[in-house]
């Protein structure tokens, strides 16, 4: 079973990302589950969302204590929320960042991709609040291979109602530009 935790801020689309990812895996015949952590969602405040993907029916619910994949939509959260403390050694971290900001990258597979630049270039969200969810999924697909890029693209229309084309292009670009550190 893959357990993915999305770290974002209110308004960045972390919840939508978790659902699009689940839909994508579902289209590949997997059993899926996606849910946000319901707390104080405020534009800007830290928000968590989760996706479980498995080959057999998923019975456990509730928060994922130590995910094997972490997707960080806002690089500031890595330090603010001390993300690595919850991660098992050897798990994968995909960060929306133009530079490496994890000092002890050795016990994790760390990937970075400047999703903000890719999103803002296509006017996804606005300057004070770029929406990077679909973009980062492109990077996640390449970095972990848990779902194909095509599945993510075909899953998008169910949750992305505005600027679908730009979202698809952004995911493709992230898929190409994501780098392992």
């Amino acid at each position, binding site marked *: 079973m893959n357990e993915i935790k999305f770290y974002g801020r209110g*308004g960045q689309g972390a919840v939508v990302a978790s659902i699009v990812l689940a839909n994508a895996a579902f289209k590949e015949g997997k059993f899926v589950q996606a849910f946000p952590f319901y707390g*104080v969602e*405020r*534009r*800007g*405040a830290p928000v968590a969302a989760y996706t479980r993907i498995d080959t057999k029916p998923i019975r456990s619910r509730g928060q994922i204590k130590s995910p094997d994949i972490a997707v960080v939509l806002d690089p500031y959260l890595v330090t603010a929320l001390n993300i690595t403390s919850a991660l098992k050694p050897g798990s994968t971290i995909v960060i929306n960042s133009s530079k490496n900001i994890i000092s002890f990258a050795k016990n994790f597979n760390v990937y970075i991709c400047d999703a903000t630049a890719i999103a803002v270039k296509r006017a996804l969200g606005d300057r*004070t*609040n770029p929406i990077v969810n679909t973009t980062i999924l492109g990077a996640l697909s390449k970095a972990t291979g848990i779902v194909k890029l095509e599945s993510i693209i075909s899953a998008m229309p169910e949750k992305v109602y505005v600027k679908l084309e730009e979202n698809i292009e952004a995911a493709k670009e992230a898929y190409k530009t994501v780098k392992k550190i």
Partner: protein
Amino acid sequence: MKLTIPQQELVYSGNAACQGCAGLLAMRYCLKALGDKTIVVVPACCWTVLSGAFPATAFNVPMFHTAFETAASCACGVKAALRMQGKDDINVLAWAGDGGTFDIGIQALSGAAERNDDFIYVCYDNEAYMNTGIQRSSSTPYGAATSTTPSNMFKNEYKKDIDSILAAHNIPYMATASVAYPEDLIKKVQTANSIRGLKFIHIIAPCPPGWRYPSEKTIALSRLAVLTAVFPLYEVKDGKYTVRKTGDKKPVAEYIKHQGRFRHLKKEEIEYIQAETDKRFELLLKKEQLL
């Protein structure tokens, strides 16, 4: 450096309000006006959550969280107790959103108004159920898209005229206010506080995620609401209307164009809003002359 409003701050930073929240500013100004001898009663609304989770509080005054319908009835109980304890000098402020005032809490508010209970009721009006994710309320303006009135079925009813409803209760003082005019807002809260009985203050409170505009424009929209007469500033003291004159009205389109919640409106729908706005503003000016 001369300040035009009191310097004392009774709200703490570090609260959980969204970036550019007018509701946060409105509370900041009201507590500046009332000072620290004030108890606040807050029903379910954005302030329920943004004021901090246990054990933190964004208030530097005592406050009580109460049920959605009960801002007015709970505040009435607080004030009655304080009076019986000989502490009648303590201000009681009922602080509710538009849902808690126009819809679910109107019965308790009407009761308090009819009894002329002695406290200030402030409605910070962001024109929808923002705390629960932007669902339509009776305060949502005609034409606006919300999560329950999507743009292809936008809100078809005009904003409920809560001010006239309160005025009809013949309460001693009522006023509208905007965070773009803090000096005016604070003066009105202090005027209200100098009067016995039920005082109602209705503050327009633009909401970046709810109205879909960039957070830096909160003050601009709070100003345009007034200048376009969509939300005119006025007072009603013992039935006498006093409307703040702001020169020639700006076209409503000036106000609407910044807001994503209106982006779907066609020309004739905006014209309808302009016509309605003009008609209501004319009526308000007539009330000022007649009453």
